């Protein structure tokens, strides 16, 4: 420590860890990261309108449970 400057990123670590935990919890429920989806749509498919969060959430919920997958056991 001493007089060395604390790097700026130092303060972002706990936020990043929290973000990862939230992402994990949501992915466990079948909801991937929404921001990542929007970023992907803006970068790769700028001509398409990304779904709003409500539609995105419903679409993902239906995809996880309504379809053929979704059964987990042990």
């Amino acid at each position, binding site marked *: 420590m001493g007089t060395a400057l604390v790097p700026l990123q130092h303060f972002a670590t706990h936020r990043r860890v929290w973000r*990862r935990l*939230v*992402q*994990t*919890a*949501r*992915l*466990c*429920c*079948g*909801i*991937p*990261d929404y921001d*990542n*989806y*929007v*970023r*992907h*749509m803006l970068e*790769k498919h700028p001509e398409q309108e990304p779904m709003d*969060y*409500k539609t*995105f*959430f*419903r*679409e*993902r*919920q*239906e*995809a*996880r*449970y*309504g*379809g*053929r*997958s*979704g*059964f*987990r*056991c*042990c």
Partner: protein
Amino acid sequence: MKAFSKLAWAALALLGAFCLGTVALRRGEQINALWIVVAAVSIYLVAYRYYALFIANRVMGLDPSRATPAVLNNDGLDYVPTNKHVLYGHHFAAIAGAGPLVGPVLAAQMGYLPGLLWLVVGVVLAGAVQDFMVLFISTRRNGRSLGDLVREEMGQVPGTIALFGAFLIMIIILAVLAMVVVKALAESPWGMFTVIATMPIAIFMGVYMRYIRPGRIGEISVVGLVLLLASIWFGGQVAAHPTWGPAFTFTATQITWMLIGYGFIASVLPVWLLLAPRDYLSTFLKIGTIVALAIGIFIVMPELRMPALTQFAASGDGPVWKGGMFPFLFITIACGAVSGFHALISSGTTPKLLANEGHMRYIGYGGMLMESFVAIMALVAASIIDPGVYFAMNSPAAVIGADTASAAAPISQQWGFTIPPQDLEATAAAIGEPTILHRAGGAPTLAVGIAQILHQAIPTGSNAMMAFWYHFAILFEALFILTAVDAGTRSGRFMLQDLLGNFVPALRRTDSWTANIIATGGCVALWGYLLYSGVVDPFGGIQTLWPLFGISNQMLAGIALMLGTVVLFKMKRDRYAWVTALPAAWLLICTTWAGLIKIFDGNPAQGFLAQARKYQAGIDAGQIIAPAKTAGQMEQVVHNAYLNTGLTVLFLLVVFSILVYSVKAILAARASTGRTDRETPYVPLTAEQQAAQANL
């Protein structure tokens, strides 16, 4: 530095060996549970560092520069390159369920040593290899499912057979899981109330997430969790109430019918209303309880009161389940050592989220190691309770009689696990239940163990907390079993529609309500029939259904490992094929041997046919043979024996036809000079994609 690292790993290996030696060699005195935990964890780490790396580099030839399906098809929805720790959490939550918790508890009747050894050796050489291998095969084939992979690499017929096998296994699993719930909730108003209370809580959460604040999972899950804990507390009041207590007391048969009705209704309701919100609750509760249990074991450091080996390990005549250590121990502990169902997860969502092939070892192999660790904790939880209590809870009434006085006598005198009847009553009173006798199925025993650990870890000075933790643990298991029943019925419906659609094409239409109702009804009827047959079985149901579940789950694992072997031969990696071929052979030997014993053994306690003959002879002679009490129950025993024979024969047929097709595929691959596998062509990661991965 390198030498230092080697030295550290050697020290870890020595630590594992030393702990395992202590566990194995100290006889006649109680040892601390930490010996088991440290032994297992050190072996996992060493296996991960060396064996998994060997598989990754030599056997599979993983290539971090190769683009995965998640990168190639990135759509932000199904295919998303995901941070490896986040994906690890997702994968673990998907594979961990009731299986690794129940199996080790049942296996504890032989003492903790056999279960411990099989869990550790099985996961390192078979279970984790299977998960890893299927993940590898599926990732290199655009995230295809297991059925598709078998069809692609072996042919159309084995693919259909594998699908049919998977459907059968699912029916068995639903029946056996539902049976665990029935056994845990029968005559237990407290447990019943809390489980019923989860439904309005889940519906409230569902409506909130759909209409009030759409998609806010976090806040409503916290609310749901608080409501759930409140309902556990309130359940205690309800159970003690003179009118409401009896109103929530149901027999096993009544609960069976309620579950069957529930399964049907829940699986045709919209998913957002009941299934999804309860799945969120059960997922968070599951992870939370597992973490709490791990912390609890480290804080409490309990002594193992079950002996390392009981007399039932040698005699094979235990009261919980019949059969010798080989092959039945390897059937009883399926999940946790090796579980075929993971092949469905490893070829499902996970390969579509994998950012880089370099993460595969951590997620595929490492995820399964964590599941095995959960099974080790279940084994610890079952072994720290008094063995007398353990056997009182898990032995059927036919063996130990119906009340505490009659139960204590054989357990104390014949088996040598001294327990006075008043201790059994005291335990029942401590957990707030009318009785602890014959609560087979694993869940209640595990709940007692979890309650003891958590109760000691969080000293409150109040004895009422023990009952709270017991019902918390019961609820935690019931919750995700009910979710599995409901989600499984849904998937089963689609599988059935696919299968029946081959004969009546109209049934394949998933948007048709008639087809939907017919297929759902068919699926519920199949598992409901098995469940009902098991519940009314005088032998207690778990004794026969659990081995069937184990056999079927291990057979699915055998199919997945045979697929792995075929793919290795097709890749011209013949010299490494033993990595999957050996565990596949072991599983085939265990399951076939167990299946044949179950069908043909001359001992009526073990062989289905011998049992059917014995009871049929009794019916013909007009006798009633215990544990049956009426002529109707005699008929039931005969009927169940033939039903179980039929199912076992079907499993054997499925696995042997896959074996024949595997051998054919391997011979063809060896005859060919070049690679014949159907991997998708190599596409390198672009510089931009590599940069994106660094920021994941």
